């Protein structure tokens, strides 16, 4: 099922949680909504589910305007951030709930519901736990029961709000891989919310980066990482360093020195230079480079992070060096970013 969000705005008491959001999701796609806290991810997900109504704009399921359909009719599977399992029901009853409440004509028999619940428990690798109550499960198990419950109604669209948010890193990684497998096996259109970029980049076909109620960029993991289209995305996805610079005659300057980067398309004026700390080359002789004095250095896993103070304004940037690289011992380091992007200063 395709899902199309078209110019949607959502206000809570005048406060705009979403401003003019548009998004096309292809059938069978696995989409991540990624953004900092309060950026409107949950709101967008709830709007798609029909748990909330847009202030303006339309949401289409296929070609049909979903506004006319209640949440029950939309047939979406929603996995809540805190699972929202029914505590007074066993695992099997939780999973079977969506089938049990169907109108008599479409309701499977009890035996069928039970069989379906067992089948789904197999799928989420929890066979044998039918009789347990949610309180008797671990967080990861509850998560999987919640997913099985949502899938029991054979939803057209599966929506997951921070599905792994409350779990530890190890379990998260496992469940992540496993969610991908389930997605590939069932082919549901799946949208999940996360504020963990690693999760989004690894898992999703396309990532929707959100900030302050707007979509900043939509693209594959490679696209949003390699060609971020805004300072926000550059800063939010992956490590990044930035420096205030000046553009003159197509050359990039830091204070009074050109740094050997040319940008023919950009007009003169102030701008900010963004690059990845690891995507640099160290230079011995500085004719056109960024040079700075070493201010701090720390070991991060397999690399060394070095903080440099640049120029008279003593702006700080971080670059990454291989462990044991001689440059880390020197007091002055010169480098040039291999890949970089300039964003003109706003206003």
């Amino acid at each position, binding site marked *: 099922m395709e899902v199309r969000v078209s110019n949607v705005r959502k206000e809570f008491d005048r406060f705009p949680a979403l401003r003019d959001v548009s998004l096309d999701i292809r059938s069978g796609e696995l989409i991540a909504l990624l953004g900092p806290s309060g950026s409107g991810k949950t709101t967008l997900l709830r709007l798609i*589910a029909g748990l909330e109504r847009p202030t303006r704009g339309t949401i289409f399921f296929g070609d049909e305007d979903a506004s006319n359909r209640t949440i029950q009719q939309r047939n979406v599977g929603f996995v809540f951030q805190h699972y929202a399992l029914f505590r007074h029901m066993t695992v099997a009853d939780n999973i079977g*709930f969506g089938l049990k409440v169907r109108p008599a004509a479409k309701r499977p028999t009890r035996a069928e519901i039970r069989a379906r619940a067992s089948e789904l428990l197999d799928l989420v690798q929890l066979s044998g736990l039918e009789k347990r109550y949610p*309180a*008797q499960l671990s967080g990861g198990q509850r998560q999987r029961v919640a997913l099985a419950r949502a899938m029991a109604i054979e939803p057209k669209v599966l929506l997951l709000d921070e599905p792994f948010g409350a779990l530890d890193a190890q379990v998260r990684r496992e469940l992540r891989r496993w969610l991908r497998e389930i997605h590939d096996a069932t082919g549901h259109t799946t949208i999940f919310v996360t504020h963990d970029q690693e999760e989004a980049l690894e898992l999703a076909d396309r990532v929707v980066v959100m900030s302050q109620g707007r979509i900043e960029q939509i693209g594959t993991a490679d696209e949003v990482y390699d060609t971020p289209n805004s300072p926000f995305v550059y800063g939010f996805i992956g490590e990044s360093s930035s420096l205030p610079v000046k553009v003159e005659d197509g050359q990039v300057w830091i204070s009074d020195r050109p740094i050997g980067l040319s940008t023919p398309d950009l007009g003169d004026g102030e701008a900010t230079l963004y690059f990845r700390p690891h995507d640099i080359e160290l230079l011995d002789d500085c004719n056109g480079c960024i040079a700075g004095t070493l201010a701090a250095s720390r070991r991060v896993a397999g690399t060394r992070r070095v903080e440099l103070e640049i120029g008279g304004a003593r702006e700080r940037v971080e670059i990454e060096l291989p462990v044991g690289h001689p440059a880390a011992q020197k007091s002055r380091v010169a480098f040039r970013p291999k890949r970089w992007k300039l964003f003109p200063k706003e206003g």
Partner: protein
Amino acid sequence: MADPELYPADAYHQHASLAVTERPLARAALMALAFAFLAIFLLLPLVVVFEQAFSRGIAPFLSAINDPDTIAAIRLTLLVAVISVPLNLVFGVAAAWAIAKFEFKGKAFLTTLIDLPFSVSPVISGLVYVLLFGASSLLGPWLKMHGIVILFAVPGIVLATVFVTFPFVARELIPLMQEQGTGDEEAALSLGANGWQTFWHVTLPNIKWGLLYGVLLCNARAMGEFGAVSVVSGHIRGLTNTMPLHVEILYNEYNAVAAFAVASVLAGLALVTLVLKTLLELRYGAEIAATRGH
């Protein structure tokens, strides 16, 4: 009003007590104090009631109970409870639902309104009904014209009782429902359940113990209410006397045995509800514990 935490949290406290155990001496002293207090202020009066009721043996007790006026009073009390408790059950659940699960203007006002019966004296509650429906009130002539009798009759007593006992169910449920939020309901809706199914299969089971407790308290008060009922009843023997009013009349007539006999029946009814609650807790203790741990 009783602390709503008191009832269902036993399971929690058993766990908690491991971590915060006082020294044995302090614990013994605290328990002794609690038991002594309960015995003197709660148990002793109850024992005295029964002791007085049977002070001249069983025969006077039975004849006091068998008196037609007493039987009428018992009947009326049960009738009032049977009408007002279900009404407050429905109103209470509806009000708690509205307050706990929706955002709307005037919510704070509604919450205050629910507390009104607790904050004004029951006598005043009764007087309000007299002012509203009495012969000299605005509605009085109209009611008379249509032959509707409210004051000094069963409808008035029921109305006053409903008013006085309204907060019990709502007060019990509001914090519970607020704590539980709307997550479960949203999950049920997203799974295709309609409003009624959601209420029946999800909301009700989540609140049933709180609801039961609220209903028991409401019932106890409905049967025991004196002040408001006294104002609107008119004290017509055999017709509009509830048990508490009847006890007072008998007592004022220096008929102590009969007064205490009726009082003991009233206390007995209250005890029955308490025993019922305890039995249910014993029977479903495991389930209560299971549904709370999460």
